[in-house]
């Protein structure tokens, strides 16, 4: 009978983390940033139908980078959790923090107990009644939750993009400026990303119930002109 090789737990975790990081780094990056009337989510995404950014609930959006089928499964689970909670209790009881914690549980559980970690990084964003109440929860492949302020970057080349964004970011910017900043920060090596390869959605701080909406390609072209 053959004995399995002993692998130190440190080594096992490191291997898994490396594997997940490599998978995520292959994908393209995404930025979420505050602007004067809400939160803008900007992703480099050549597909016009397979979305990285989507609506979870009235004031909550989801964004994922990495392996599409994996973050899409998490997205659907989030929509279900939110709709069930809103149905069972009240729409006011659904919040980003609760969802972020549940996502962290799933990702953490998968990272330690499954053969393969999920190769995703996700964001749960909630637009508040004031800019101070906006929330951005950045959740890593191993279940680490980071409570970000003002803006966050997900995916490959995170550090380089973050540096470029810090130079430009102002919380009082208009939506057009916010989209421009994000576009410039995402366009590394001074190669401009085509507007057709940009996916932009917003959570708008207004009186309507559903705050999430997507920007049409025409609007994006106009903003970047």
């Amino acid at each position, binding site marked *: 009978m053959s004995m399995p090789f002993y692998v130190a737990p440190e080594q096992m975790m490191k291997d898994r983390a490396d594997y997940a990081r490599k998978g995520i780094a292959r994908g393209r990056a995404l930025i979420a940033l505050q602007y004067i009337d809400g939160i803008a989510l900007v992703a480099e995404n050549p597909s016009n139908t397979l979305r990285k950014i*989507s609506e979870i609930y009235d004031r909550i959006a989801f964004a994922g980078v990495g392996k599409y089928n994996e973050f899409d499964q998490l997205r*659907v689970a989030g929509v*279900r959790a939110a*709709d*069930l909670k809103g149905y069972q209790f009240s729409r006011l009881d659904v919040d980003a923090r609760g969802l972020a914690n*549940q996502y962290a549980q799933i990702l953490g559980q998968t990272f330690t107990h499954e053969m393969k970690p999920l190769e995703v990084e996700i964001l749960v964003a909630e637009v508040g009644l004031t800019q101070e109440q906006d929330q951005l929860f950045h959740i890593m492949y191993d279940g680490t939750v980071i409570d970000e302020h003002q803006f966050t970057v997900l995916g490959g080349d995170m550090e380089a993009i973050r540096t470029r964004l810090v130079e430009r970011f102002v919380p009082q910017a208009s939506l057009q400026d916010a989209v421009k900043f994000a576009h410039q920060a995402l366009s590394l090596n001074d190669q401009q990303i085509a507007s057709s390869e940009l996916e932009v959605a917003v959570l708008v701080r207004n009186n309507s119930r*559903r705050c999430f909406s997507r920007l049409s390609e025409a609007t994006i072209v106009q903003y970047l002109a």
Partner: protein
Amino acid sequence: MPMFSFEQDPGANFGELLKRVGLSPFGDSLPVNEILVPHATTCVALRCANGVVMAGDRRATSGNLISHREMEKVVQADQFSGVAIAGAAGPAMEMVKLFQLQIEHYEKVEGQSLSLEGKANQLSMFVRSNLPAAMQGFMVVPIFAGYDTLLNHGRLWNYDATGGRYEEHDFVATGSGMLHAGTVLRMGWRRDMTVDDGVVLTARALWEASVADSATGGPDALRGIYPVIASITSDGFARIDDARLKNTYDEIAKGVGQQ
């Protein structure tokens, strides 16, 4: 967070999801034969040149008592559609709430809205699953109307207690005052009506129903309660405000006075 294996996955169906997690409100047969619960009555809808108009009175009754004066029986389902309900108020309100959730849930999970036909079909399944309760007296009979963004015109559906779904081309009335309201609509409906004409005609239909049917409420100028009337056009669902309805009913009252 609810996650399912491939075979168990409820997809975009919110009703199925509720069943999977044990929260489904449907299908419980009740041992009681008759309890007096509030009933909602008389809703109408008609098609006009650029959309539809829906209207419903505000009264709920329990037997011969008025149990609620300002119930809203015409409810927005999503941007381009609305539901009007007649029948037992409790199950009806629950059904509308679930229907709204189903439409939104589908849109979020699938990334695009259901077609208007799809929504009408979904509502018919909700009505059918209420059949055991309907047999015990908790009947729910809705009207579904909306603006079909694929065909660019308004559409109406009528239902029966078994979930039967019938598309109507001109107008539809449901509830205890349906005969009177329906007659007014039949006399006044024209193919080229504008939304404004439609508002006046549905207001008149509810007025006549309230005159002849004790379970239908008329305009209540004393308390400032008017029927809920809404239009659905390519601009979406819009509720007509009470100030405008007050004028409409003042005109109708003046006309009746002159007779």
